[in-house]
């Protein structure tokens, strides 16, 4: 009961603060007669949002599908790479330096190359960019998780002659789960950032343009109200993705992991 109370106030106060800021903002615009192209008022933004709702909706869906495709790809490939590196010393030695390079190279700099390769299909370019952007936390967190399996438990499994596959399934992978999930939360945010920055550079021909492209175009055309609306959507998307993964990780860990209790 105490907890719901805390949750309510921690939700209410920021909301009241937001309403206050919006009202103050609206007031400033009217009072100082600031032109719309320079800084639109909240009501202008809301108006632009309603007028373009269909475009926004489609763009949001495109951005979301890029993000989720990228996350799915990086979960599959990231976990496989982590397990491979964990199981085979040779793989560890061979691949690890490249994983670090992948991590330290800013993805933005690979985008032009990808555009050359996948010129005909911008969607694929965007997915690949987002994928590269978000795979690292999955690999490194899963690997740390696998490696930090309780040493005594390993001894207990081995004293009964458990096979490596059995241990992987019943011991290492479950041990790594909390680590994997916290990597996934970071990955979700990175996939969105990756997809959006790629779209900034790649742009999108045709109909399937994402939210970032709309934001960019609104900027070129000085439709600042539309730009703000797009910005707002991106922010909401970010929060949505983060909360979604937070919730998934809460569901998966609720009976056994301490850190999941303060969801």
């Amino acid at each position, binding site marked *: 009961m105490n907890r719901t109370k805390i949750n309510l106030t921690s939700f209410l106060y920021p909301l009241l603060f937001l309403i206050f800021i919006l009202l103050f903002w609206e007031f400033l615009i009217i009072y100082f007669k600031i032109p719309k192209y320079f800084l639109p008022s909240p009501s202008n933004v809301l108006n632009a949002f309603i007028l373009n709702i269909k475009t926004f909706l489609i763009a949001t869906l495109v951005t979301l599908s890029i993000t989720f495709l990228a996350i799915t790809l990086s979960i599959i490939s990231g976990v496989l790479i982590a397990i491979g590196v964990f199981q085979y010393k040779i793989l560890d030695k061979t691949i690890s330096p490249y994983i670090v390079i992948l991590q330290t190279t800013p993805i933005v700099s690979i985008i032009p190359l990808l555009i050359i390769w996948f010129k005909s299909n911008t969607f694929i370019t965007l997915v690949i960019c987002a994928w590269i952007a978000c795979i690292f936390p999955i690999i490194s967190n899963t690997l740390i998780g696998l490696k930090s399996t309780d040493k*005594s438990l390993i001894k*207990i499994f081995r004293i*009964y002659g458990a096979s490596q596959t059995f241990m992987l399934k019943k011991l290492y992978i*479950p041990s790594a789960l909390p680590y994997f999930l916290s990597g996934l939360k970071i990955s979700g945010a990175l996939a969105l950032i990756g997809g959006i920055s790629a779209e900034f550079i790649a742009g999108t021909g045709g109909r399937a343009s994402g939210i970032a492209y709309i934001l960019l175009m609104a900027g070129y055309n000085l439709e600042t109200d539309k730009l703000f609306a797009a910005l707002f959507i991106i922010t909401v998307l970010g929060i949505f993705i983060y909360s979604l993964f937070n919730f998934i990780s809460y569901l998966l860990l609720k009976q*056994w992991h301490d850190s999941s209790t303060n969801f």
Partner: protein
Amino acid sequence: MLYQTLLNTRSHVDFIKLDNVSKMFQNLTVLKKVSMEIHKGEFIGILGPSGCGKSTLLTLLSGLEKISSGVLHNNSTKGKSAFVFQDSCLMPWKTLEQNIAIPLEILNLSRQEIEEKVNKYLKILDLYKFRKNYPRELSGGMKMRASIARALVTDPEVILMDEPFASLDQILRERLVDEIYEIYLRKNLTGIFVTHNIAEAVFLCNRIYIFSFHPGQIIGQIQINKSNMDMKKYRNSDVFHQTCVKIRTILENSNE
């Protein structure tokens, strides 16, 4: 008494034997020329300062780690040894009964057999009510019991214990020590018991090896004759206290 007859009928054949066994990690000699004989049905205590290689010795006895030199004979049946560690080290994602079942799953027993044995040990260790609970929902004492149940569920010949009660309070320790002792007497167990607690070792064990630090070497061996004594009386007896003092003296002298 039941205890007595059981103790007397135990055959004293060589079971586990170490002959000048040394263990090195890279250049570090952790155990140096350790020779010991462990007979079937004995309860052996290992005492010594922190870092003297007690845990390493258990790993060697379990066969999980290779010795660097010397000879190690282990006539116990493969897969019939069990570990108990200081932390209960249960898997937090499994319920108590699933945790206790894991050794049997590894040994590939049938569902029905697993269920039978797990239930049996859940009852023996007073955990049956909590079988569906996850470890985080239980107290430290109950988790330790579950960990002991997991070790016993395979009916092991040898049980290797590495400071099993170190994280529990005094009362709980004594209760668990009593329980372990009783199970030890009922089963044909051989126990190897690493501890820092002299009194615990003197209570449980019939022989105690004392190790020195750096390198780990045996500096003393104490035989305890308690076979004709009631355990409650034994705990308050002169023999008990004198043995404790004797061990403390050996340990203290080794530090100088």
